[in-house]
Every structure is written in structure tokens, then in C-alpha cells.
């Protein structure tokens, strides 16, 4: 007894009826008995007691009650030793699984839409199963951890993996046969990749081949150099890998430069956008953290969120007014000929995406920089290191996880963005727009799915690359020991340079938004400049109810997205368990999947049978939760990577459960990443188009879908008014949250408000 670990003592403390296994099983039975099992139609309310289990009569779902009785009986006997506790938990787990199976089989056999009774029973049993796994030591961690793991795995499977599998099924399962014909057809289409253009003088195929050859040579040479100390058989394999990698890389560069079509365009833009946005975000975050000027900090804070809270196509439109063929800057000021204007295509899409994604990078880099301990830089300076040396050897390695997270997010966002290319893409095709256009322009669900698969593979590659970058070195800097001292100020020259950059950026952003606001108060954008409030009156009359409904949906989705994201990040970074990488990959998959494919996936998965949820608000909320959760995950993970585990160990030693530790110890230290996740989830929900365009239903339209249809119809005045109201609303909200975060940041307590 004395040599039991603290986890063992925890289990002992919870022995008997006080165990969460019993509590949650009883909760499940209570839901099962108190609420109807199924629904008659789509609507969740009013409750229809005609579908109560007692009315439904004998069936397999009664196994829920049997399971509860069994669990109670098993836990009725005291367990005094480790093996006994374990045996008891295993038996309970078996009983719970029988209950879940009974419930599931009877619902699916009847194809009855699930009701609150089934929902509550299922959730209760899942939590009880998690608690039983932990008591039986099948999962290392306490009941909270066990339940968290089971729930997260279930959610990710049900709302991410399963719908995507339905899409894959529709791509390869055509008219009852398994076929790859659609893949072959799409890959040979000039819309996807077009290299040999017989109408040009250049032999593009040869150029691409040259690039591939150069890549192969470079890869092989680098591989040989990298592995110069490795023994021979292993070295051969590594060099071969470098060779293949180099060849693919060279080929990719070749098609980016010489090819046309969706694949090269998407790659090229991502390669331009991700580093540029990250660099800009990093520069601004550095300035924001280290400048002494409160004004600069305030401006940066506000302006950095501006592009972030606007639907991308709105930025695209105001860019046309500023930089288009007859744009205010390009035509009226710089006098560039309309025919020489390069905006439509790679240039415009890249510029717009950099502006849109720099704030995401800024928020991540700011969080990452704020987790640095100033004492480290101070120590290095005291030891005589130069400023450059301090940056290279101290600051840079510590912000690398943030850089990797930002690169990852920026490239994924760039690859799956569809609003910007739709407005500014010109003649160029992009993978994400092709998904949409294949669905809506060419009516081909299977072709869209093929584009979806290609996008997923791309994202997978990006993810692996960022993992490799993160995996090299990790440092813990938050040790629980007091962090004191001030950050080194920036060198004067650098600060002025950064200020100039920030100023330029601010001016451009302000004019972009000025154009939108201006458009909302004049009669007809660019033609009739009489001031009017008529667009706002029309907005109040027709669009406001839709905006209000969207706000409700966004709140309902952002909070669960943040909590679930934080929980998954905690589980993934702090625990080892079966299905851990699946959890991480699955949640990323939802973020990376182009929105339209996810929307269609939800329709395919939830349109009939037990999981019927289409044409309810619930399905929109769920789609948004699982779509936006990954940012909270990534942000929390990069924060957690810097928090030393000794803090949690101290908390555990003081007998706090991992749930308490998460809420009272980790959450306050993670306030920036969590807040970034919350802001992102809310704002993305407010500005989401692609993922819910298929899920909105009669009487349940959302703001951005309405805005897009107004823009397409040419109602620019009302669209501008709507965009202005949305921007002001979201901006006000974010400013409030940012101010709140200063008061909440654990590391600022006792230091005064020094940010």
C-alpha cells in the first residue's frame, strides 16, 4: 500500500460508489429514462415522449439500464489492492461497452434520429468509460484525463473522420463500383496541371525536367554531405530519400515557374505567402513587445486584428478599388496603365492573403515572444554577448515553435482559402476554388472530392515539415520561478526600420478599410459620391436579423471550440495514449480540409438515419466548432511547449486532479494562446463562408453568405454597410477581450500592467 504511486492513491480515494465511473453511468441512465430516446423529425424541440424508451417497449437499448446495474454491483464491493481495483474497472468498462453497443445497434437498426435521451446516455457512458480506463490503469492519468481522451477521440471520429470518409467514398465509389477513373480524369485535366503549352515558344516540359534534375542533384549532394558520418547501409537509404525529396522539390519549383493550372498556382501562392506573412507578423510582434511607445503598441494591437476580422473577399474588393486597373493608387496616383496592372492573379491573391494572414502570425508570435523569460536575454548580455548573438542564440531558438506554428497555419490557410482567389484570381485556377467550382459549376461531386484529396495530401506534407522543424529542439522557459527583468530594447536602427514598416502597413490597411466605409456612405461606389445613410437603413431592415443570428451561432461555437482545443492540446502534449497522433492529425484535418468539402461532407454524413442533423442550427454550430478548434489547439500547444512540467507535478503533489491543474495552473499561463484560439474561433465563425454555405437552410442564413450574395449581385453599398457594421462590432469585441487579457495574464500580476 505504501509503495503505491499517487495515481494509485487517487484511485483508492475514489473507490466504491464515489467513483466517477458509477456517477456518470447513473447520469447516463437518468438521461435515458428522463428524456425521449429519438426525434420524430429534424427538430430537437419540442420533446416527443412518444419516443420514450418505456413507450418504445423491449429492445436492445435497455442494455443501458443493465449496464448501469452491473456497474453499480461491481463497485458495491470494496477493492483494497491494485489488482482488485484494476479488475473492477475492467469489468465496469465491459458493462459500459455492452450498454453503448445496445443503444447504438437499436438506434441504427431503426435509423431513428437520435434524441436527447440517447445523447445524454451516450455522453454519460463515454465519460464513465474514460474514468474506468484510467482507474484500471489502461490509460495513464486520472479520471478527467481518461474521460477527456475518450470524448475527444469520439468527437474527432464522428465529426471529422467519418464525414471526410463519406466524401472519399463518393470520390471512388461511383454507381456502385470502386474506381479511380475520376482521379485519372482530373489529373490529366488542364485545369489541374498544364505544362506543355503548344501555343508558346518555350518548351515548358523541358524546363520543368531541368528543374527536377537540378533538384535531384542538389538533394543528393546535400544528402551525401549531411550523412557523411553515417554508416553505409543506413547512409544509402538516407541519400535515396534526399534524392527523391530533391527531385520532387525541383519538379514543384519547375511547375510553379513554368506550369499553369490549380496545382502550381496554389503552391506558388503558399510558398510566397506563408514566409512573408510570418516574417511580417514576427517583425510587428517584436516591435509591439519591445517598443517603449504606448501609441505604437496600441495601434499595432488594433490594426493587426483588422484584416483578420473581415471576410477575405471584402479585402479583395477594396483592393480592386485601391490597386485595380482603375485603382486610386495604381491608376490615379501612380499612373500605371490599366493593361499593365498585375493585380489579378498571383500578385493580388498573394498580397491579399499576406495582409489577411499577417495578423494570425502576429498573434501567434506575440504569444510566443511573451512566453520568453527576459532574464535569459539579460544573462546573455551580462556574459558579454552582442545583440545579434543574443537574438541568434537565445531569442531565435525560443521563438522557433511559434514560427513553425505560424508557417503551418499560414500555409494551410493560404492553400485552402477560396474567397480571395475567387475575387482576385483572374485567369488563374486554385485548388480550393476548383473544389467549389467543380461542385457548383461542373456539378461533379467526385471531381471536387479528388481536388479535396490533393489538398489534404499537400496539407499533410506541410504538417510533417512543421513537425520536423519543431521536433529538432524544444525548450522550457516558464519554470514557475519568478520571471523578472525587462526585455532588451531593440537597436535604434532596427526599431526605426520596423516602425517604418509598421507605418506603411498601417497606412495601407487603414486605406483599405477607409474604402469600405466610404463605399457604405455614398450613393454608388466610385460613380455617384453623394453622401447617404440609405444603405444603413436598408441593412437595418433586411440584414440585421441575419447578423444577429450569426452572432448567436458564433458564440455558441467559439466557446466549445476553445475549451475542446485547449483540452486536446493538453492531452496531446502532456499524455501518452493510444490514438494520440490520430487525435492531433484528425483535428488538423478538419482545419485543412477546404470548407466546401467539409460542408458537403456534413451533408453526406448527417442528412439521414440516426445522425440526422441537417437544416438545424446544431449542424452549423458543430461544423464551426470542429473547423475552428485546431487554432486553439496549435496555439495552446506552442504555449504548452514552453511551460515546464514541474508546475503540474507540484500541483499533482498537492493532490489536485489534472482537471483542476488545467484550469487553475495551466489556463492562466496559457491565457494568450487560449484567447487567440477564442478570438479566432469567434471571428472565423462570423466570417466563415465556404464551410457553411451548404449547411445554411431556409430561415437560417448567416451574415457572410448573405454578404457574398449581395456582392455578387452588385449591391456594393449595402454590402459595404454590412461589412462596416461587422468590422466595428468584431473590433469592439476584440479590444475588450485584449484589455481583459492584460488583467488575466498570470505573469502580469504584481507587476502592474506593464504590457
Amino acid at each position: 500500500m505504501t509503495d503505491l504511486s499517487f495515481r494509485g492513491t487517487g484511485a483508492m480515494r475514489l473507490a466504491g460508489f464515489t467513483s466517477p465511473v458509477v456517477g456518470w453511468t447513473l447520469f447516463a441512465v437518468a438521461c435515458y429514462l428522463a428524456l425521449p430516446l429519438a426525434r420524430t423529425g429534424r427538430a430537437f424541440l419540442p420533446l416527443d415522449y412518444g419516443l420514450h424508451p418505456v413507450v418504445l417497449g423491449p429492445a436492445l437499448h435497455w442494455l443501458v439500464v443493465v449496464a448501469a446495474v452491473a456497474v453499480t454491483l461491481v463497485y458495491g464491493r470494496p477493492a483494497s489492492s491494485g489488482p482488485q481495483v484494476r479488475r473492477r474497472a475492467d469489468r465496469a468498462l465491459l458493462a459500459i461497452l455492452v450498454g453503448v453497443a445496445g443503444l447504438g445497434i437499436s438506434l441504427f437498426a431503426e435509423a431513428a434520429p437520435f434524441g436527447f435521451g440517447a445523447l445524454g446516455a451516450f455522453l454519460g457512458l463515454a465519460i464513465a468509460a474514460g474514468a474506468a480506463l484510467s482507474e484500471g490503469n489502461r490509460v495513464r492519468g486520472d479520471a478527467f484525463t481518461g474521460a477527456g481522451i475518450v470524448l475527444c477521440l469520439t468527437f474527432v471520429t464522428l465529426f471529422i473522420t467519418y464525414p471526410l470518409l463519406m466524401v472519399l467514398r463518393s470520390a471512388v465509389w461511383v454507381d456502385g463500383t470502386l474506381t479511380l477513373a475520376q482521379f485519372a480524369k482530373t489529373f490529366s485535366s488542364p485545369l489541374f496541371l498544364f505544362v506543355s503549352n503548344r501555343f508558346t515558344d518555350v518548351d515548358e516540359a523541358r524546363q520543368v525536367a531541368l528543374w527536377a534534375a537540378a533538384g535531384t542533384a542538389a538533394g543528393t549532394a546535400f544528402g551525401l554531405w549531411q550523412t557523411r558520418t553515417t554508416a553505409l547501409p543506413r547512409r544509402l537509404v538516407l541519400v535515396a530519400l534526399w534524392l527523391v525529396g530533391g527531385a520532387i522539390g525541383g519538379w514543384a519549383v519547375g511547375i510553379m515557374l513554368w506550369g499553369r493550372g490549380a496545382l502550381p498556382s496554389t503552391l506558388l501562392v503558399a510558398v510566397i505567402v506563408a514566409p512573408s506573412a510570418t516574417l511580417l507578423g514576427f517583425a510587428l510582434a517584436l516591435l509591439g513587445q519591445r517598443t517603449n511607445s504606448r501609441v505604437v503598441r496600441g495601434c499595432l494591437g488594433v490594426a493587426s486584428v483588422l484584416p483578420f476580422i473581415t471576410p477575405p473577399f471584402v479585402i479583395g474588393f477594396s483592393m480592386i478599388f485601391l490597386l485595380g486597373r482603375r485603382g486610386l493608387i495604381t491608376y490615379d496616383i501612380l499612373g500605371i496603365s490599366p493593361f499593365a496592372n498585375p493585380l489579378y492573379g498571383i500578385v493580388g491573391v498573394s498580397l491579399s492573403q499576406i495582409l489577411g494572414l499577417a495578423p494570425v502570425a502576429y498573434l501567434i508570435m506575440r504569444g510566443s515572444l511573451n512566453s520568453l523569460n527576459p532574464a535569459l536575454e539579460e544573462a546573455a548580455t551580462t556574459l558579454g554577448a552582442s545583440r545579434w548573438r543574443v537574438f541568434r542564440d537565445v531569442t531565435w531558438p525560443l521563438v522557433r515553435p511559434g514560427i513553425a506554428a505560424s508557417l503551418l497555419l499560414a500555409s494551410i490557410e493560404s492553400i485552402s482559402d477560396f474567397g480571395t482567389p475567387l475575387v482576385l484570381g483572374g485567369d488563374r485556377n486554385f485548388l480550393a476554388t476548383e473544389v467549389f467550382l467543380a461542385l457548383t459549376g461542373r456539378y461533379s461531386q467526385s471531381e471536387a472530392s479528388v481536388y479535396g484529396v490533393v489538398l489534404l495530401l499537400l496539407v499533410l506534407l506541410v504538417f510533417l515539415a512543421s513537425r520536423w522543424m519543431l521536433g529538432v529542439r524544444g525548450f522550457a522557459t516558464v519554470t514557475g520561478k519568478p520571471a523578472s527583468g525587462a526585455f532588451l530594447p531593440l537597436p535604434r536602427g532596427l526599431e526605426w526600420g520596423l516602425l517604418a514598416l509598421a507605418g506603411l502597413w498601417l497606412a495601407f490597411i487603414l486605406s483599405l478599410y477607409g474604402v469600405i466605409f466610404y463605399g457604405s456612405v455614398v450613393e454608388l461606389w466610385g460613380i455617384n459620391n453623394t453622401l447617404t445613410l440609405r444603405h444603413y437603413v436598408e441593412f437595418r431592415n433586411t440584414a440585421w436579423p441575419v447578423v444577429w443570428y450569426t452572432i448567436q451561432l458564433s458564440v455558441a461555437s467559439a466557446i466549445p471550440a476553445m475549451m475542446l482545443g485547449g483540452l486536446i492540446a493538453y492531452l496531446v502534449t502532456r499524455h501518452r495514449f493510444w490514438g494520440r497522433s490520430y487525435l492531433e492529425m484528425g483535428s488538423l484535418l478538419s482545419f485543412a480540409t477546404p470548407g466546401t468539402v467539409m460542408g458537403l461532407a456534413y451533408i453526406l454524413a448527417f442528412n439521414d438515419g440516426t445522425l440526422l442533423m441537417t437544416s438545424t442550427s446544431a449542424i452549423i454550430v458543430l461544423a464551426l466548432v470542429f473547423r475552428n478548434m485546431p487554432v486553439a489547439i496549435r496555439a495552446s500547444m506552442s504555449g504548452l511547449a514552453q511551460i515546464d512540467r514541474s508546475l503540474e507535478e507540484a500541483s499533482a503533489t498537492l493532490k489536485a486532479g489534472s482537471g483542476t491543474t488545467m484550469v487553475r495552473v495551466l489556463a492562466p499561463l496559457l491565457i494568450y494562446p487560449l484567447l487567440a484560439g477564442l478570438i479566432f474561433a469567434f471571428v472565423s465563425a462570423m466570417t466563415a463562408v465556404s464551410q457553411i454555405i451548404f449547411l445554411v437552410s431556409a430561415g437560417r442564413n448567416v451574415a457572410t453568405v448573405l454578404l457574398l450574395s449581395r456582392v455578387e449581385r452588385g449591391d456594393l453599398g449595402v454590402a459595404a454597410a454590412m461589412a462596416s457594421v461587422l468590422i466595428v462590432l468584431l473590433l469592439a469585441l476584440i479590444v475588450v477581450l485584449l484589455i481583459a487579457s492584460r488583467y488575466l495574464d498570470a505573469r502580469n500580476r504584481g507587476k502592474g500592467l506593464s504590457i
Partner: protein
Amino acid sequence: MTATLRRALLASAISLAATAAAVAQGVVNVVCVTEEWCEALREPFFAKTGIRMEFLNLRSNESLVRIRAEASNPTFDVFYGGTGDPHFVAAKEGLTVPYASPMLSELAPEMVAAVKGAYLPLYANPIALIVNPKVLEQAGAPLPKSWLDLADPKFKGLIGMADPNSSGTAYTVIATLVQIFGEEKAFEFLAALHQNIANYTKSGSGSLQPTGQGELGVAIIFMASALREKEAGLPIEIIVPEEGTGYEISGISLIKNGPNPEGAKAFIDYALSAEAQDLGTSVGSLQIKANVNATPFPGGPKLEEIKVIDYDFEFYGTPEVQQRLIERWTTQIFPVPR
């Protein structure tokens, strides 16, 4: 510890309950492509029949995808508006069913004949050249009178048109040219036109606003939206080419196995009435209405006054024909450098 989890679960259960939806009985659900028109029909329809009409605004092809995806358990009763092709396809796939509305006798016979019973015609909308005279003058290009005028190199970089790979409008343009000139000559013209195109837009009317704002000189699009923008004050002129032009016939279809078929029929009958069609004109849908008793928009086109070609909707609406023409354009016209 578990208290926190319990609270979290409770919160999410409450949010689920709060967002749960109720479907009332006397409701007809409409997939609607023309948003303001449907908005205008809602109140009068309720006053007349006591049936509430709820609608969702989607683009025409999205509507088809949506109806197809929900085929096993439709949530919508009526498919309203948009281009004719999705209505044709929906009828062919059995997603919609024919409905012999008592209003058929009031509809323009040539439109009813052209759609061959696949759906009920709502309005006709011709393709036209939308020009910004000021831009053309500045660039030294004349006002175009015919399709072939647009092949003149003076129009280089001034013309906007949609990409047929993503837009039904652009396909209608190509099919129109093929029906006027024959396929070979039409593609010769398209190749010359290609040299003058500034950009191919993704959406059908994507070049209308740029033309109004002075980015482009000519847009090749459907006439009605341009007519409305002209009314709103854009400095544009509408030109019907001398050789004649093609058009679309928008429609209204009854969705198979919808939740409220009787309400759907009542709505279709109402939507085809002169009163409902005039409501469309009042909210800026300025197409040529199918109901012969509807009041035409002053200054708007009349089917008998403009030179429309005898467009073969059935043949050029066939997916195989569509696919072949679009593929030919994509491989022979689009890649040519300009």
C-alpha cells in the same frame, strides 16, 4: 475535477438545446436563386394562402448540388429561379417532378415550348454586350455593334467574360456563337476574342461591376442585371449584337418527395401569376417575364423586339455536348498566350 467537466458538458448541452429548430406545419421551403424576389413574395403569399414561405438563397448550380445531396430526404419543396440548365438536369435526374400548373395558359407559349415540359418557365434573359462608352472612347475603340466587332485588336485588354469551366453564362455565350456561326467559325472568333480579353471571371456576371467602375470597356453577360445597374446609375450602355443573341429561360420546379407538396403547388401557382411576376420587376429583377399579363419594365427588352436566335435548349443543355464544347475551349483557346 468532475464538477468542471460536468459544467462544461452542461453548457454544451444547453447550447445544443437552444439552437434546436422547430419546423412548423404550414410552411413551404424554397431554394431561391433570386433573393429579393422571394423576399417580396413572402408576405403577399402568406396573406393569400395562410402558408408561410421560408427560402434559402443559393446560386443556381449550388441549388442543384444541394437538392441532389438531399435527394434521399429533401428539406425543400420548390426550386425557384436561376439559369435553366440546373432545372433541366434536375428534371432529367428525377430530382424534380413535372407539375401541370393551372397558370400554364397565361405563360408565353414560345417559352413553354422551349423548355419542353422539363420545368415551368419564369422569365427569359438575353445575352448582351454591356459597354462603358467613356472607357472605350479613352482607349480609342468604337462602340461594338456585332459579335465580330469584338475581334478587332482595338479592344485589346478591354473585354471581360466568364470562364465556361465555372460559369453557365459563359457556356451560354459559346453555345450562342456556335448556333450563330457554326462551330468552326465560332471557335475562330473565340480565338480572336481571347486576344482582347482582360480576364476570365469565375462568376457569370463578374465583369459587370468592373465595366461600370471603368476597369473594363465591354462585358459579355446576361442583360437583366446590367439593366438594373444602369438604373442604379452605372455609366453603361446595353447593346444586342446585330447577328442576334442567345438567352436563358429561368424556371421553377417542384422538388420530388418534398415535405409539403400541396403548399409547393400553391406557391408555384402564385409565383407564376402576373402579380408575383410584377413584384419581381419592382425589386429589380428586370428580365422578360413568362406571364404574358405581367407589366413589362419600361425601357426593358421585349422578346419580340430584340433579335434572339432559335436557341436549342435541349441539345445544348445535354451534359455531353456541354462538356465537349467547354473542353475544346479549355484546350484550344484558353492556353494561347496573350
